[in-house]
């Protein structure tokens, strides 16, 4: 088990290098450091001297990926790419191009992201499981048919309309919660309500349908037939046997998204004006701040890889038949 985890961690290193290289190429294929310096200095007519100073102070004066003048290994290490990427592996994000400490910013902005993402996930799963079980209980009846139809209708509506509709109904018509914004402490609660509700409602369609298929697949299995043959009531079969066994695929499906909750939702955050990591990333992209984009992409990939690893481990925990080698 431990050997497996170590091997997976080592395997992650080339992937992370690849991710970094890709981001690097994507970002600098059109934007030369000169362009970035010019936009950061905020003037079209900056002197070549000023650009040079800015590049020197931000470490962009070296060759990009390959340094022909350096000796030996220095050909690869004495470059912008190496200098900028290698510290990321120690989670030292450094300073953004506008001079702010990225690590500190991420620490600050992580909490609003989590405050939206965690309740949305938990409430969403509870709601979806309830609906899914309900429809599976009445399988083959009109409730089943119309339930599935409603799901398909719900998932055909663009998430934009859930957001706009939620803002219109709850904020404009009934004045229950503010349209957007964020606050610290317990004051944040009223700002969180709308994004969470919108997040949950927009997920009902696809979630319920997915859980229904999951439960129906489980209901078709042999142990369920055995349980019925023993004379158990339908409720008992469904809630004690089917639900428990269906938790295995359900759990592993959830574990994979857990680490990514830190990243926040780009779309929801930029809609509701929440100062989380999602809006941080969007800002970074729009200001063409390579340091921020690179850090967030790196963080996202690390979390994604952790998620995959956690999924594998959770498989062995919930299902003893699975062995990792």
């Amino acid at each position: 088990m431990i050997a497996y985890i170590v091997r997976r961690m080592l395997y992650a290193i080339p992937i992370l290098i690849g991710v970094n290289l890709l981001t690097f190429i994507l970002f600098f294929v059109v934007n030369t450091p000169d362009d970035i310096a010019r936009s950061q200095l905020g003037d079209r007519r900056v002197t070549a001297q000023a650009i040079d100073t800015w590049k020197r102070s931000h470490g962009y004066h070296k060759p990009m990926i390959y340094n022909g003048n350096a000796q030996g290994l220095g050909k690869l290490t004495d470059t912008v790419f190496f200098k900028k990427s290698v510290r990321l592996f120690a989670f030292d994000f450094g300073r953004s191009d506008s001079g702010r400490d990225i690590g500190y910013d991420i620490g600050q902005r992580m909490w609003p992201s989590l405050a939206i993402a965690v309740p949305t996930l938990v409430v969403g799963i509870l709601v979806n499981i309830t609906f899914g079980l309900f429809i599976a209980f009445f399988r083959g009846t009109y409730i089943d048919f119309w339930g599935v139809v409603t799901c398909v209708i719900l998932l055909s509506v663009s998430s934009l309309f859930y957001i706009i509709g939620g803002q219109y109904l709850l904020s404009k018509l009934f004045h229950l919660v503010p349209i957007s914004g964020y606050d610290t402490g317990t004051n944040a609660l009223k700002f969180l309500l709308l994004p969470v509700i919108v997040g949950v409602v927009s997920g009902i369609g696809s979630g319920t349908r997915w859980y229904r298929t999951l439960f129906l697949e489980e209901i078709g299995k042999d142990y369920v037939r055995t349980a019925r043959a023993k004379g158990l009531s339908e409720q008992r079969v469904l809630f004690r046997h089917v639900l428990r066994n269906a938790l295995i695929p359900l759990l592993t499906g959830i574990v994979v998204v857990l680490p990514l909750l830190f990243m926040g939702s780009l779309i929801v955050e930029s809609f509701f004006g929440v100062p989380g990591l999602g809006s941080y990333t969007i800002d970074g992209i729009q200001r063409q701040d390579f340091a921020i984009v690179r850090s967030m992409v790196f963080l996202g990939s690390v979390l994604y890889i952790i998620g995959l690893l956690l999924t594998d481990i959770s498989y062995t925990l919930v299902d003893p038949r699975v062995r990792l080698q």
Partner: protein
Amino acid sequence: MLVLFWTDVLIFLLVGMVLIFVLYARRREHLCAPWREVARSGVAMGSLVVLGFYIVIGLLDSIHFRPAMSPNQDNGQVQYANEILSVFDRLVTPLRVRGEKTYSAPFAAFLYTKETVELPDGRQRRQFPRLKYGASHLTDPETEKTADIVMTGMFAAAKGLLVWGVLCTVLITALGKWKHQALRSVFAQMRAGQTTVRWRSMLYTLGILMVISFVAADLSMKYHILGTDKVGENVFYQALKSIRTGLVIGTLTTLIMFPFAVLLGLMAGYFRGWVDDVIQYLYTTLSSIPGVLLIAAAVLILQVYLDNHADEFSSVSERADLRLLFLCLILGVTSWTSLCRYLRGETLKLREVDYIQAATALGVRHFTILTRHILPNVMHIVLITVVLDFSALVLAEAVLSYVQIGVDPTMNSWGNMINSARLEMAREPIVWWSLFSAFIFMFSLVLAANLFSDALRDAFDPRLRQQR
């Protein structure tokens, strides 16, 4: 003069591929069987008609040309206008050219905002001016409008039903001729829903669509049925034009990505070893970058490129088209990984199957095994993924355009309609019609696509087929 955009070329290429596949599959029983199952499903055939409606509009909107202006007096040469139109634009010219000054509500006779008008006696007054085109044929809109709308609508609906009836008769006659049956029995079977192809639900859907389109067409000649937007452009026209954008994103993205996914997925699963390692590395790397980030970065890069090379494009629409194509490309790059992973797993399973082992033992070349034995057996996965992805991509386009990393702002798309309408939510009375139109058009397309893809998946997925 014909103008070919890149996306037009690819769309017609796609249409050509579909036609070739149909001709190829017609004589092969194993390829026809699942489709026959789809044809038996009423819901699927109903949605197919709706999809077909959208596709026809999209295709008409994909034939672009520069209209010829009157010949030059001096040398008799024909000059072409700078503006690029499509065949669809030509068909709906009244919708396109009848612009108002600014917002007006659906079926309104007056503008949304007040203006200072000079009265005949020289005094000035602030009032809502009459629209230039909307309801301009009425002398007193307050009293006449409702009756006029109802009358025009009823008349148009009757026309629609008449055309529908003619179409039904033609179909029944053709079917009777083809199957050598009496028309009466064909009709009875169709009404009872006992035909192998569910003509009943197709014809009902067609009837509803006919009535709606005739009513919309006739009313559009007199009113702005879905209102006008900020610069007075007809919202109905915008929503119709957006169909092409949505379809292009939904289909071309998969057209671009699926050769890569199929090639790499099959190779990784079949050859294993270092090929597998490299390909796995490739798609794990790509999929660990959050998709929205990749798209945002790529679109920003393109924007910088377009700004720096502004003079290389002869027109705005050409530029917008390139951006659309690029968006499809980048969406394809972010979405091929899951299909690739799926195909790799399936190929790993397939290569251990007896007939593949037999082929290997007989010394069949790798390439032949891949194309003749493995590829046909994974095609259903590709098809299901392509159809399932379609609706997700249409929805994604709207979200991306909304956060301004989607299609060009000058291009008609549902995302852009929503984007421009969202700021007007705060107005009093509320400007709801742009949102409403985008909602209706998107919803019906995505719903039809979802229903159709569900039926398709049921028919093609053998595992599901066994369960039922």
